[in-house]
Structures are given as C-alpha cells and as structure tokens.
C-alpha cells in the first residue's frame, strides 16, 4: 500500500492540470459560496437602546420639531434592531454574539442639543459599540449604521441651524418670541436702528446727543451687516452630533463562523470525493487494476490507500483554508484539536463516498462528473434551512442529509470552529459510521467488475 501511495503522489505531481481540477477549483467554488453566504443579503443585527424613545415621534429643539421617527425608520431599513431596555443589556448582546453592534441613544441627547443651540455649548452623543472579533462583520455593521447616522446628523444640524438662523433673523428684523406661553414682541436690530436714526434727525443739529446716537447707529449697521452675513457661515458649521464609537471583544456571531464552516466543508467534500473517485477510476482506465487485484493488493487495501490519500489531501487543503479564513472570521484556535478531528473524520467519510463513486466509473472523467453530480445536491440538501420546507419533503431531505457525510461534517466543523450546538461527539461518530458504510459499498462496486 505504501508503494501505491508513493505512486499516486508521483502521478499527481506530474499532473498539474488534474490537481488543478481536483483541488484548486473546489476551493475557489467553496470560497465563493462562503462569501456569498457571509456577505449581506441580510442586515446586521444591532442591539438598540433608546433612552429618549426617539423612534416614537418627534423631538422638539427650540421651537422646532425634528421628526425622529422618520430617520429611525430609515435606520431600521438597513439594520435588524433588537430593542433592549438598558445600556448594559445592549452591551451584553454584543458580548454574547447575538448582535454585531449596539446603538445607544442616551436620555440627555435632547437637552444637549438644546443647550448647544441656546448656549453654544453641548455635546449631543450617541454611542456605537462594535464587536471587534470579526473584522468583516464589524465593518459591515459599522457601515450600515454610519451611513444612517450621517443622515440623522445632517438632519439634526440642519434643524439646529434653522433654529439658530431664525433666532438671528429675529434679532435682526424683530418678530415674536414665545416666552412662558406668551407672545412677546421683539424689536429687532434693524428696527432699533431706524428708531435711533429717526431720533437723531429730530434732534437739533448741535445737540450733544447726536454723536453718541450716531455711534449706536454705526454699531447697528455693523452688527446687522455682520449678522446677516453670519447665517450662511453658520450653516457651514460641522456636525453637532458626536458618534462615540467603542469596540469590545464579544463572541463571534454564529452566522460568520458557520459560513466559514460551510466554505471549508464544501472544499473538504470536493477535494475528498473527487480525488478518491478520480484516483480509483485511474487504476481502471490505466488497466492496472487487473494486475493489482490478482493478489498484489487486497481490494480493501486499494480502497484504503485511495481514501487515505484523498482524505490527507482534503484535510491539508482545508486546514490551510481555515487558517486563511480565520484572518477574516474569528475561529477559535484554542479548539484546534477539534478542527483536526472534524476535518479528518469528514475527509475520511468523503473519501469513502469518493471510492464508492470511483468504483462505479470506468474512467477519470466519468468519475469526476459523477462526483460533481452527487456532491452538489448533497451539499444543497444539507444547507436547506429547516423552516424553508415542511412536512414530507422535509423528512425526505433530512433522510438524504443523514445518509451522506455533508451535514455531519458541517456540524462537526461548526462546533470545532466556534462551539456551536449540537456538540461534536455525535457528528464524529456519524462520520465514522458513514465511512464504513461507503467503504463497504465501494467494496461491493469493485466486486461487480470481478
């Protein structure tokens, strides 16, 4: 068996195209599937603590109203909010990995905005807490929120300016001021100037009051000119709303590591099944099979050799892939021995499935085609969400998923990567049993040709 292994490795080394087909292609497909699953069609889940209950309607600032619910609705179009009742609860959601981010609107935001407008001091702040565990998801959540926050910010600053500019206009031109429910007339700088100007005119030419009042008029000219100019300048003032962004290391969200597990197991499946099927079929297409089975090697030995080689290659490729994926998605390196267990057992089961297919095919191309035709539906069946189908169809799909290694391998890998339920024990036993079953089927397939 050792010499057959050496021989197969030699053949693979001299067949870069075959290796390309059998190894690189599946990995590319798997990565594509993984990214398609991990990148958003969905919205990031955000824990939302809103102390003001801004979403309920409008907030008054000065004598202006900001229709917050309008902006809240826009925000909710791009996130999936989980409403919580305290800041601490929001943070816990992120720590537990139930939410990718937390958005906290503090109770004092309205008074801060008001004070900013009336006294020019104030620091209205919303708090954004991100999970730094998964760089990819972190960015995803941040972008979704930042885009919306920007809109709110612009809206708020526009409203703030409108308040400020209106007040300014009143100082300049006069108007009515709402004060304690009473309407108080306001004179305005320009009116004041006109009155003073009139007063000067009515004074005798040599009146000592004239130069003094002239100074008041000059000041009013200067001030109204300057203030009139101030409103456009004011509107160019930057954002009044501060987003205080913090990061914490929470658990990774299940969806990210699950997507990683899917990508890895799809690769494991393709490499394991294709290589085992292809190498076994190669023995037959080279006619060497007839020499080997005449007692040079037991059929069991031949099958084991192919399964081991395919499983070894599949494990190697997917370990490398997991390490790469862990740069983007948090996978728990602490559980590395479990990774190894899940990938090795999965690879053996896929290898056994591969030789069962290869035992039926007469040449490499037929074997590869059959391996593809069998593998893809198995993966899809196992990936159909439980609530997407019902009744009999669900039972059928469950049964199909049960008799092929994909689902068990996926459960094992998902658990190994991030400790998701169910545990890893049963999936590993399941895989071991499937390895034996498919090995036995492959043995039967070989007998068919004797």
């Amino acid at each position, binding site marked *: 068996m050792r010499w057959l292994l050496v021989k197969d490795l030699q053949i693979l080394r001299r067949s870069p195209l075959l290796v390309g087909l059998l190894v690189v292609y599946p990995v590319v497909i798997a990565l594509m599937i993984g990214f398609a699953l991990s990148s958003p069609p969905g919205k990031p889940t955000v824990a939302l603590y809103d102390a003001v209950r801004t979403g309920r309607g409008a907030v008054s600032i000065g004598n202006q109203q900001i229709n917050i619910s309008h902006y809240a609705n826009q925000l909710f179009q791009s996130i999936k909010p989980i409403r919580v009742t305290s800041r601490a609860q929001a943070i816990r959601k992120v720590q537990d990995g139930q939410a990718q981010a937390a958005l906290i609107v503090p109770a004092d935001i309205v008074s801060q905005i008001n004070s900013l407008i009336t006294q020019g001091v104030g620091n209205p702040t919303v708090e954004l807490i991100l999970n730094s565990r998964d760089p990819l998801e972190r960015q995803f959540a941040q972008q979704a929120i930042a885009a919306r926050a920007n809109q709110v910010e612009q809206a708020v600053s526009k409203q703030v300016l409108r308040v400020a500019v209106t007040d300014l206009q009143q100082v300049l031109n006069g108007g009515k001021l709402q004060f304690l429910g009473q309407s108080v007339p306001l004179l305005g700088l320009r009116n004041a100037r006109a009155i003073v100007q009139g007063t000067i005119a009515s004074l005798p030419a040599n009146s000592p009051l004239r130069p003094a009042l002239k100074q008041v008029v000059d000041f009013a000219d200067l001030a109204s000119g300057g203030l009139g100019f101030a409103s456009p300048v004011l509107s160019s003032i930057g954002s009044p709303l501060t987003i205080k962004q913090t990061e914490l290391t929470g658990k990774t969200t299940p969806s990210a590591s699950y997507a990683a597990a899917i990508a890895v197991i799809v690769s494991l499946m393709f490499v394991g099944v294709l290589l085992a099927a292809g190498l076994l079929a190669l023995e037959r297409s080279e*006619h060497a099979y007839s020499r080997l089975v005449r007692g040079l090697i037991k059929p069991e030995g031949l099958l084991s050799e192919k399964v081991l080689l395919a499983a070894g290659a599949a494990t190697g490729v997917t370990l490398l892939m997991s390490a790469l994926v862990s740069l983007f998605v948090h996978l728990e390196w602490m559980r590395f021995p479990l990774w190894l267990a899940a990938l090795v057992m999965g690879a053996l089961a896929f290898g056994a499935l591969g030789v069962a297919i290869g035992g039926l095919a007469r040449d490499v191309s037929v074997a590869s085609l059959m391996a593809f035709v069998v593998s893809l539906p198995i993966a899809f069946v196992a990936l159909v969400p439980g609530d997407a189908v019902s009744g009999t169809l669900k039972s059928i799909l469950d049964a199909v998923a049960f008799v092929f290694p994909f689902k068990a391998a996926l459960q094992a890998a998902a658990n190994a990567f991030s400790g998701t339920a169910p545990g890893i024990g049963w999936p590993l036993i399941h895989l071991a049993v499937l390895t034996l079953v498919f090995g036995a089927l492959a043995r039967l397939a070989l007998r068919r040709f004797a």
Partner: protein
Amino acid sequence: MSIGTQTAQRTVTVAVRGLTKRFGARIALDRISFELYAAEVVAIIGPNGAGKTTLLSILAGVLNPSEGEVIRTPDRRFGWVPQEPALYSKLSVAENLRLFARLERVADPDQAVAAMLAQIGLEDRAGEEVARLSGGNQQRVNIAIGLLCEPPALLLDEPSASLDPRQRERLWEFIGGLAGRGTTIIFSTHNVAEAERYAGRTLVLGDGELLFTGTPADLERAVSGGDTTLDADTPRLAGDFESAFVRFLHDRGH
C-alpha cells in the same frame, strides 16, 4: 518451482473444471475443462469474442468464474500479461517496473528491474514516461512486468500483437527458455502460424466453447477434415492452414 523441475513433463500446474463465465445473459465461457502441465507451451486460438481474454483473466485471478473451478499447483500467483498494456502512463518505464516488483515482493527489486530492462532492450528509455513510448514499446514493458516474479505459469494475452519481428523473435526465445526451466506458458493469438510454430498444444475456443484440444499436428488433421492426403510430411503454405482453420470454425457454426 521444485515441482516443475523434478518430474518435468506430466506435472499438472493448472486444472480447469467446468469453467463457465456469464456476463448478464451472455455466456462468455461454457463449461470448459482442461489441464496445463509444467514446462509446456499452450496456445489459445479462436475468433474475436471467442472468450480467450475471459479465460486467461479467470486463470490470472482478475475475474471470478460464474461456475466451475481453477485448481493451481502450487497455489502461487501466475504471471499475467494483459491484452491492453496495464501500465501507469505518467510513470517512467523503470518506475513502472520497480512499482510492480515491489508489489510482487521480489527479493531485489532493483536487480529485477535491471534484468527486465535488458531483456526487453529498453535500458536507454528507462527514465522515459510510458505515455511517450510507441505502442510496441509499451507492450514490451507490459510483458516485462508479467515476467518479474518468475511465476510457475505465465499467462499472455496476444503478447506479440504489436511487436516488430525482431522483438517477436526475442519474446519467443525468452519464453522457450522459461518453458525449458519448467514454467507453464499459455498464450492467446490470432496468428495461427505462431501457434503452430511455438505451441506444444493448442486450445481452440469458439463462442465460449472449447472446440478442440491437441497438438498443432492434431489440429491440422482435424482442420483438413480427415483428408489423409494432407499429412504432416506434405509441404504446404501457412496460408492454407489458416484458411482451412477458418473453414473448420465455419463448419462448426462459428
């Protein structure tokens, strides 16, 4: 091999009893029985699809019979040269030989490889990928692998089909030497003259039935339909024998 050398002529190496092979409804071999002796050279002849490859494959242990049995004495693996070259095309000539020498558990694989390369005259192409050899040279490697383990019996399925005359000559010379040392040789061929010239005995297969067993001279007599004027001493052309053989098969419905 002690058995072969001690009582050379009449030691049975293989006994075939009521051998039947069915592929679905098709009967490829129909209740065949015969014996093979040590140091004898036996030719199997018969038209395409007669069952020659099937018979040799069962003797080689590649196929299982549907019915009947094959008894080997001693119970050792036979040498096997299949009809189509059974080689790894991505490996070199020497790598193929070495792999099978190791799988055959030959005591000194490297020495056996060197000896075989010399025998088939491919020493200078030892490092070349088999895929790049000509069909005839591939067949030479194919034959060499069958000879690696010095078996008690050697089975060759149309071994000379793609060889040039010189290689053919060398092959029969080598096979004659093996038989002289007690090895049983059984080969199939479409070349009736070859069977006549090198075989001590001929088995004629037609549609899975064993139509004839005997020496080439016996076959000749049977072929000429009891025509006594045509005895072994009468000079004649090989072509005559071949056409007579075709007539022989035709008369028996093949």
